[in-house]
């Protein structure tokens, strides 16, 4: 009797009901685009513009949109560009931020805290004004229309260094000292000791950098004006102009846009969820 009561208290029916309703609302748009991507536009039109389930299931929309010879929406090229751009950005970010964070956390030098705190303070200024002069900088460097314009400017962030620095404070100095006694130089210590030890935070920062860069939408559409050189995120906004109200084709484009992130999320969820609590200052 008592046991049953406890179990009952552990099944919060109202909570479940609320969550269930919201979850359905959250998932419907995704189900809708996934279903629509397999429809035939002609059949949607014949049905008066609305079909919930596909009449004929087809992969033709995917074949058309992902075709490397698609000239209007070169999704295939955009995808490759995005992988190269976001991948290079992430690798560089992790190394450069990691190096800086190591120096700020574990080395002693004149102006260390002054330099870091000044940068952290300045970086909190809203950067809305930056994009116009940044365009000018790209123009002068002749980086417009090249991947460099998409890879490099984003490496100027400070907050990620802050996150890594906080984590590195937790590594005992004795580890570094004993490596020094063994004759290891700072570069060697950084690559052989710091990077492996800081793996959790570096993965989190890397994932933030990757998704942030992959999802950037404003800057690539300003810095790149050659259709073939766009990124997936910036390029796909042109789909509306090409396919207009062809529901099946547009839904296929939407599926192409969401799938890479769904895959990434499936494998890396816990890093995202842990690092959000970290950024809000709830832990550590």
């Amino acid at each position, binding site marked *: 009797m008592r046991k049953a009561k406890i179990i009952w208290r552990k099944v919060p029916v109202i909570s479940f009901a609320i969550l269930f309703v919201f979850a359905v609302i*959250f998932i419907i748009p995704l189900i809708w685009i996934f279903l629509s991507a397999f429809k035939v536009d002609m059949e949607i039109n014949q049905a008066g513009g609305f079909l919930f389930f596909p009449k004929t299931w087809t992969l033709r929309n995917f074949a058309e949109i992902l075709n490397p010879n698609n000239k209007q929406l070169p999704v295939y090229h955009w995808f490759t560009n995005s992988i190269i751009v976001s991948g290079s950005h992430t690798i560089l970010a992790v190394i450069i*931020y990691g190096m800086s964070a190591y120096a700020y956390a574990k080395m002693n030098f004149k102006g260390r805290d002054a330099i870091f705190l000044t940068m952290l303070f300045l970086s909190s200024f809203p950067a809305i004004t930056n994009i*116009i002069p940044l365009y000018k900088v790209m123009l002068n460097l002749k980086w417009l229309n090249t991947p460099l314009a998409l890879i490099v400017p984003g490496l100027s962030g*400070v907050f990620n260094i802050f996150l890594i620095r906080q984590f590195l404070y937790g590594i005992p100095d004795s580890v570094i000292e004993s490596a020094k006694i063994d004759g290891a130089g*700072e570069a060697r210590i950084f690559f052989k000791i710091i990077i492996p030890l800081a793996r959790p935070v570096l993965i989190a920062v890397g994932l933030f950098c990757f998704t942030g860069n992959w999802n950037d939408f404003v800057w690539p559409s300003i810095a790149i004006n050659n259709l073939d050189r766009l990124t997936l995120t910036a390029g*796909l906004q042109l789909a509306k102009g090409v396919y207009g109200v062809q529901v099946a084709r547009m839904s296929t484009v939407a599926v192409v*846009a969401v799938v890479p*992130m769904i895959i990434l999320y499936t494998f890396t969820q816990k890093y995202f969820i842990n690092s959000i609590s970290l950024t809000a200052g709830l832990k550590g």
Partner: protein
Amino acid sequence: MSERALTRKSGKFSITPYLFILPHVILFIVFFLYPLCYGTYASFTKWNLFNEPVWVGLENYKTILFNKESTFYRQFWNGLGNTVEFVLLCVPFQIIIPLILAIAITQKPAGHRLFQSIFYLPNMFSITAVTLTWLFIFNRSLGLWNHLLGMDVNWYGEQPYAWICLVIITLWWCIGTNLIIYIAAINGVDQSMLEAAEIDGATKFQRFIYVIIPSIKFPLTYTLVASVIQQFNIYGQPLIVTGGGPKESTFVLLMYIRNLAFGTGNPIAGTSSAMATCLGLVIGIVSVIQLTLLRKQNT
């Protein structure tokens, strides 16, 4: 303390630390600090992006703030008004909905982890992916929503429906972050306080108001102001979904700023920079309010 011990051993001045921070410091100066300063400077000039800017003092600011005859004046105030309207419409829900969901999830019903994953997922998407996903949900004749409910509402073309759509799309995209923060915060609430309240006969609702809310004040303030700043930067949703319509009623400030500098005509980068600086100032003021509030609650 221990860091000091480290250098005492190495003793002399070393260039190594500077080499470690140099790459980032250079990147920071070239791609953040210089553009920040130049953008502020440009707001006091006439500039077409390609020639040298010509100093005009406060003229751009006078135009956008006070010159009622000017289109820039109309654009600035319309854009700022629409942006503020969006912030006011969106942010309350961006706090309340994740708070309710977080409370439900922390009761740990069946599948609570799965629910959490579902609610966070849209956060991963780009604004392009989000808007494309929703584009046909609210379409008048082709859309799911009108068909399911048997309505004939012109969602994107009439107010207040256009705002409702943009708010729903934004909430779908954004609530995940606040949700995760609230879940972590509620899980951190002192259990003995909750039990004491329960023994004293407090209902669930009372426990929520008098125990949980005060204990998570800090994350609440943080998310409130972070959300406000985030939504002041609204750009992609109206650009792709409503195109700023109907009648420019969802044309937000960043759209005007972008159009003036990188639109089809001759770039008007000076005025555009002045608008951006004003928006930056508004956001900056909100940030200062945030810091003051956070400090008050910490003491």
